[in-house]
């Protein structure tokens, strides 16, 4: 089976600082991949390069058989690559339902496979909000939400684009035990529906429960990739997190 996402020898520099170097990553269709690494190790930069928010100087990103290096972020979203932001970035002047309307109008409808209009969009927005337990706040503004609800909105907006691959960038940070379980169940359910998911997370309990495979990024390099149980025992990974 050919990989859904194939990142080859990816490199990204910010001035003299090398954020990513020679990163190789393959994700198979339907897979649940966990991506961990200490703060500043380049996880979000990797997501930004994959999704087109940043341009990588070296290497290439291949998604679903297409080399996407020259594509803009919105073109990649239309191909089926969706991401949530680490710090929630809702559209502040739009209601929750309208927040989800944007990817439906500009990703799902623009893709042209099926076109939703009028009432169908509204129904889909409410349905998606229902999946993250926000349906009763559909017509409120994001500023009325708690941090936790913002993260759910962020995830729902990524899901609204009907992605083939969803990258959840620390969508559980700061959540309570029960809320982590809730998001975890949501991501696993989504994966069951055929969406490939990359989860970037610091909460190891969630990472271990979620990941079929685990990759570790340290100082811009991938130092481990494989079975989660083996990876967390890997000497180099332990050293990166706990020191000598």
């Amino acid at each position, binding site marked *: 089976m050919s990989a859904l996402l194939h990142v080859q020898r990816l490199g990204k520099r910010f001035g003299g600082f090398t954020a990513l170097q020679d990163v190789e990553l393959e994700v198979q269709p339907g897979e649940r991949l966990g991506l961990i690494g200490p703060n500043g190790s380049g996880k979000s930069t990797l997501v930004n390069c994959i*999704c*087109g*928010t940043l341009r990588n100087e070296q290497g290439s990103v291949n998604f679903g058989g297409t080399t996407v290096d020259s594509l*803009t*972020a*919105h*073109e990649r*979203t*239309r191909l089926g690559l*969706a*991401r949530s*932001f680490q710090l929630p*970035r*809702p*559209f*502040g*002047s*739009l209601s929750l339902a*309208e927040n989800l*309307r*944007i*990817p439906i*109008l*500009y*990703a*799902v*409808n*623009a893709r042209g496979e099926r076109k939703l209009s009028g009432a169908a969009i509204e129904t889909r927005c409410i349905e998606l909000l229902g999946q993250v337990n926000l349906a009763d706040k559909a017509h409120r503004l994001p500023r009325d939400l708690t941090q936790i609800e913002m993260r759910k909105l962020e995830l729902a*907006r*990524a899901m*609204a*684009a009907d992605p083939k691959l969803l990258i959840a960038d620390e969508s559980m940070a700061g959540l309570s035990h029960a809320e982590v379980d809730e998001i975890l169940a949501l991501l696993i359910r989504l994966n069951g529906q055929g969406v490939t998911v990359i989860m970037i997370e610091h909460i190891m309990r969630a990472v271990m429960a979620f990941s079929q495979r685990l990759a570790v990024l340290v100082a811009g390099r991938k130092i481990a990739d494989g079975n989660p149980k083996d990876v967390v025992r890997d000497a180099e990974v332990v050293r990166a997190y706990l020191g000598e």
Partner: protein
Amino acid sequence: MVSLVAKAAGRETAAGLGNVAFIGVLIVAAGAIFGATRWIGNDYAFFAAYVVVQYIVLGTAWNILGGYTGYVNFGITAFFAIGAYSTVVLYKLTPWLPLPVMIVIGGVMAALVGLGTGYLTLRLRGVFFSIATLALAIVVQTLITNWDFVGGARGAYVLRPKMAPLIGGGYIEYLFLVMLGLCVVALATARAIERSSLGFGFAAIRDDEAAAEASGVPTLKLKLVATALSGGFMGMAGAPLPYYVTYLDPASGFSLNYAVNAIAMPLIGGTSSWLGPVVGAVLVGGLQEYLRVTIASAINVLVAGVLMVAFVILAPQGIVGLFQRKKR
């Protein structure tokens, strides 16, 4: 009176009026305003009302870019004057062209300049974009000032016909009618944008451009649509100006008044909906025209400036925003 009609139209909006029906309401309102102005039976009423309606168009044009997508354009006079000077050129080359055709040509010229500037400057965010547009105004003014064919620094005379075509009466009545028609087109366009997927795309860009991109919004393309539309309407608002003033020189075509008012009026009325620039232009424009004849003509900018500062501090959502907040 204009505000009453606008308010009535606004109430209809809440009931979900279709685009075609809305244009109908606007045409009826414009007809009523024209009839009422004619009933006053004084040329000055036309001159004053023309200015107010011109500012509705200019404010609406600015709001399409500044209010909907959040890109603050200070270069209003560049687009406005391109419209005005394209009429001067057409007057010299093809004086037999009907005014509405000149307006469309002026609008297309300004829209093309808008597209070009947009392409060069829209990668700049926030205040840097605004500075670039300010530079554009200066560049265009310098070019016009040194272009002898349109009069250069001396200015150009445009003789207007004594009689209005089609409707009879003075030519100012015709100018006012044309401007009302342009206003109908501008408002119908602005409202149609608000209710379309284009409007949602604009709002997403205004709120968070990176998140908009990640949601599939082609931000650069949409911003170019906004600059072209906005610039085009500014050009169209300026195109009849030579016939209105009959003598156009760079100092009056690029007057700071246009820029200040075109920004102040949407901000005072509210930038979130098409109604904002209407309310702002009627209020500020009406007040300015009143003070112009009662106190002094130079008080214009002061009024706009003081009101703008007051609203930015006390009611940043503008007058329309105040009412919307009460509803929520």
